[in-house]
């Protein structure tokens, strides 16, 4: 028998007994960032495939939301910072070894790309707003130029969209001290989920049958890939180290079993794939909004649940003999 206990009470807030350094802000950012990446990606692909006309919602309308979603995500991230007035420090250094540093600089580049992407279809998507913009010479010029280079912009957007999508998973994956995140499947899963949520948003938003149909097909395949990836993730962890096995236990009977399988996996993947499959077979359209809604909720839950599990999974387990809550008496 091995008994390991702390002799001196250790209860550093948010570190003990399990990490709770991040709550909803970071997952929300990861979700919104992924969503924005997915929209960028589809908008660009449709342009390049010359299917802008068939998918006007995503290429012309939804694309505007990339900057909004990103900004909301960034705001959430800002709220998470515990020393937040030093936020400018992200941009007084570039640390190549730090994914978060990459992330913050990528965002700086992505913003203008998003803007260009928006401008390149602005006249079609938001004619009223475009007209206002045209009142300024510079505005008209910008619209003209970006329309002219629409394809080039789309080409540039794709790698950045993918980078952003992967980054949201990579961010966690590279924190090697958290065994649950320590699998290469995670960035891929996050990317596919990002695309799937963007597809789902398109299904929800579009009023054009063809577009909805197309994206239902796309989403169906993406969810299928996701299910496959989740299984891969389980297999990958199960062949991992002791601590990864312990982390896996958290979703195989442990305290996150319900969260992972019932909330994320069932609501986010199983139910929508069934609903979308039914829709594709029978072409039933009655409750078409249900599946994408579930996908979106699932997309957020994926990030939240994976983050919680990761924070919970640890190399060390410090067990207090004394009641850590007693330290509150010091306040």
């Amino acid at each position, binding site marked *: 028998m091995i008994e390991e206990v702390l002799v001196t*009470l250790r209860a550093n807030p948010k570190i003990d007994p399990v990490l709770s350094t991040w709550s909803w802000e970071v997952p929300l950012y990861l979700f919104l960032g992924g969503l924005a990446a997915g929209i960028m990606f589809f908008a660009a692909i449709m342009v390049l495939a010359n299917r802008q006309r068939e998918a006007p919602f995503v290429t012309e309308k939804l694309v505007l939301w990339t900057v909004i979603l990103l900004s909301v995500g960034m705001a959430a991230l800002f709220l998470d910072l515990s020393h937040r007035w030093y936020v400018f420090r992200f941009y007084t250094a570039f640390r190549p070894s730090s994914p978060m540093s990459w992330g913050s600089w990528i965002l700086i580049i992505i913003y203008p790309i998003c803007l260009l992407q928006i401008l390149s279809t602005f006249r079609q998507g938001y004619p009223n707003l475009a007209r206002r913009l045209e009142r300024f010479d510079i505005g008209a010029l910008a619209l003209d130029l970006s329309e002219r280079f629409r394809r080039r912009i789309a080409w540039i957007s794709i790698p950045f969209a993918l980078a952003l999508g992967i980054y949201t998973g990579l961010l966690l994956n590279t924190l090697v001290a958290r065994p649950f995140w320590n699998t290469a499947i995670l960035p891929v899963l996050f990317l596919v989920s990002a695309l799937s949520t963007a597809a789902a948003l398109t299904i929800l938003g579009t009023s054009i049958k063809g577009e909805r149909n197309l994206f239902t097909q796309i989403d169906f395949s993406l969810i299928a890939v996701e299910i496959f990836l989740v299984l891969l993730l389980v297999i990958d962890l199960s062949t991992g180290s002791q601590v990864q096995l312990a982390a896996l236990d958290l979703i195989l009977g442990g305290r996150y079993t319900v969260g992972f399988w019932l909330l994320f996996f069932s609501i986010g993947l199983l139910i929508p794939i069934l609903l979308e499959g039914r829709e594709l077979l029978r072409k039933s359209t009655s409750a078409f909004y249900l599946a994408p809604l579930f996908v979106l909720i699932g997309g957020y839950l994926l990030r939240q649940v994976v983050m919680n599990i990761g924070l919970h999974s640890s190399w060390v387990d410090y067990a207090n003999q004394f009641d850590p809550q*007693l330290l509150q008496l*010091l306040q």
Partner: protein
Amino acid sequence: MTGCAAGVRRPGTGELTVSPTICDICFWKCAGIVYKDGGEPWKVVGNPNDLHSRGRLCTRGTAGLGAYLDPDRLKTPLLRVDNNGNQRFKPVSWDEALEFIAARLRKLASDHGPEKLALFSHGSGGGHFKHLLQAYGSRSFVAPSFAQCRGPREVAFKLTYGEGVGSPDRTDMEHSRCIVLIGSHIGENLHNSQVQTFAAALHKKAKLITVDPRFSVPAGKSDYWLPIKPGTDIALLLAWMHVLIQEDLYDRDYVTRYTHGFTELKEHVRKFTPEWAYPITAIPAARIRETARVMAANAPATLIHPGRHVAWYGDDTQRLRAVAILNALLGSWGRPGGYYQQEKVALPNYPIPEYPKITARVQDANRGKYPEAYAGVSTAVFDASIGPDALYKAWIVYGTNLPLTVPGVAGRLQEAADSLDLIVAIDIQPCEVTGYADVILPECTYLERYDTLRNAPERRPSLALRMPAFKPKYDSKPGWWIAKQLGKRLGLGDYFPWKDYTEVLEWQLKQVGSSLAEMKKTGVKVFPRTTPMYFTEGTDIEFNTPTGKIEIYSTQLAKLGFDPLPKYSAHQEPPPDYYRLNYGRAPAHTFGRTQNNKYLFEIMPENVIWVHPTVARKWDLENGRYVRLKNQDGVESNRIRIRVTERIRPDSVFMAHGFGHTAEGLRLASGRGADDAALITNIPHDPIMGASGMRANFVTFLEDEV
């Protein structure tokens, strides 16, 4: 210093001021240095010139600032007033409080006589009040460190060697090649230089033999851990003597030259074979033989450690006699690695008039019992303070939280308070006993006062100074000031002829060739030894016993009708479903005095009860759950957290002492953990010197309804 990034905190870059102190968080009295950083309290560290601390303070000493910073400290004198039948305390001025006490004491002296005043004290400031008491006309001082702690060992060693072990203990562990601990958990009790010399022995790979039913900290470091059945130590000690004599392993020269009664001992232990001891102690005979041989192989640098808290079963003087005898057989008394001879500074007292003649002795409270009690027995003084024929009508309680310290008094304090005319409590913090006082006087902490010079027996004689690092917080005052003010009001001003205690210090230091100015700088002054630290080999020594020898056979005990050689007798076993209550120290706390210190609270805010996994299964207990304990007499404890561990025998439980405070003024400590002292209600008294046997109690578990 440049080249480092700005924005990394660097403590201690403000203007630094340092001043010497003597730690008062426990009674080891380590010399330390107080640092202030930009005028703000920063830290207390050990004084490198000090033999008690060797430049390092223990956990509690390091946390000393917590005592000074404690917002729950006593802030002003408090007087008990009757508010329509409700007793409460009202803040009063020092004048009012002191005058109140003086009036009562004047009346006491004229109505009953001054010898009716008793002083309970513990710790370094007590001296000022002992002085006051003697000037007033009483010599009834009592400290729980005698009958509740190390009295049996002092008496046993005095009977055997003519002198006690003393404090700090004269154990020469840094030179020991073999150390035997019997129920003593050095490391869990953190007496600074004792731990340091113990660790030094470990570093040098000294053999360590630990006798303890619990897998204590030193047990985990031992070459031999003997998990003895509780209460059977004397049997083991006798068997060890048997082996040493039978196998001719004892120090023949030493025994012949210095001891008296070896032949009687040889005869006495003949039948106490290891095979006899095995069924009693549960230590296999071969193991007993092997460990005896290890002791002999390393003798005389083998220390059978005398322990400190040894008031266990009511036959403790006899057990410690066995320890003393075993040391004599190994020839370790007076030898390197065994017991060295201590030396103090010959420090004259400040000249004062002679005390009045006092015939009443504190031993009168023993009412003819405990013939070898050379100091006051706190339980006896307590008993003698109750009832119509009480010997005591007033108490001064200085820094001694009686209910947590003296077992058996918790339930009877009200009775005592009703019987006494006056209880004065002098303390730093509100605690259980202050609640029963008529007047409470707030003393300032050791960091805010001058005090008597520390002149402790040690390897080398030395003096150490305690001086204030800070002005007294709130309306608290130093002990010397309180004693002097009371003296003045009692017409005893002649005994306090100084204006300020620094005059006393200055005078005393001058007599030994130093000065207050020097001591303020150095904190400690070490003097050369004038006597040898060990026996000079081959010379005869006159011991302070009736025979002038080390009395293996105690002529004094024989004369008093006690066993002149220790015998084993069985102790009570736990009844079914009950477990022996074992208690001990935790390194982070001193008795019940430090639980409200925020630094120490932070690392150990409560105590836990250790239970063996089989017990946990039987009672369905799990780690972290709270239970209550009930003892054999139906006394229930506060809630206490379970720790399931293999480190305890299935027939006992263990908890750290000093928790379970009920004094509401202690905002951190109150209600945290359980108090072992309250669960100790079955108390066999040592007939030789009156020690309270504290290990004869059994507890069972109760659900904690929250």
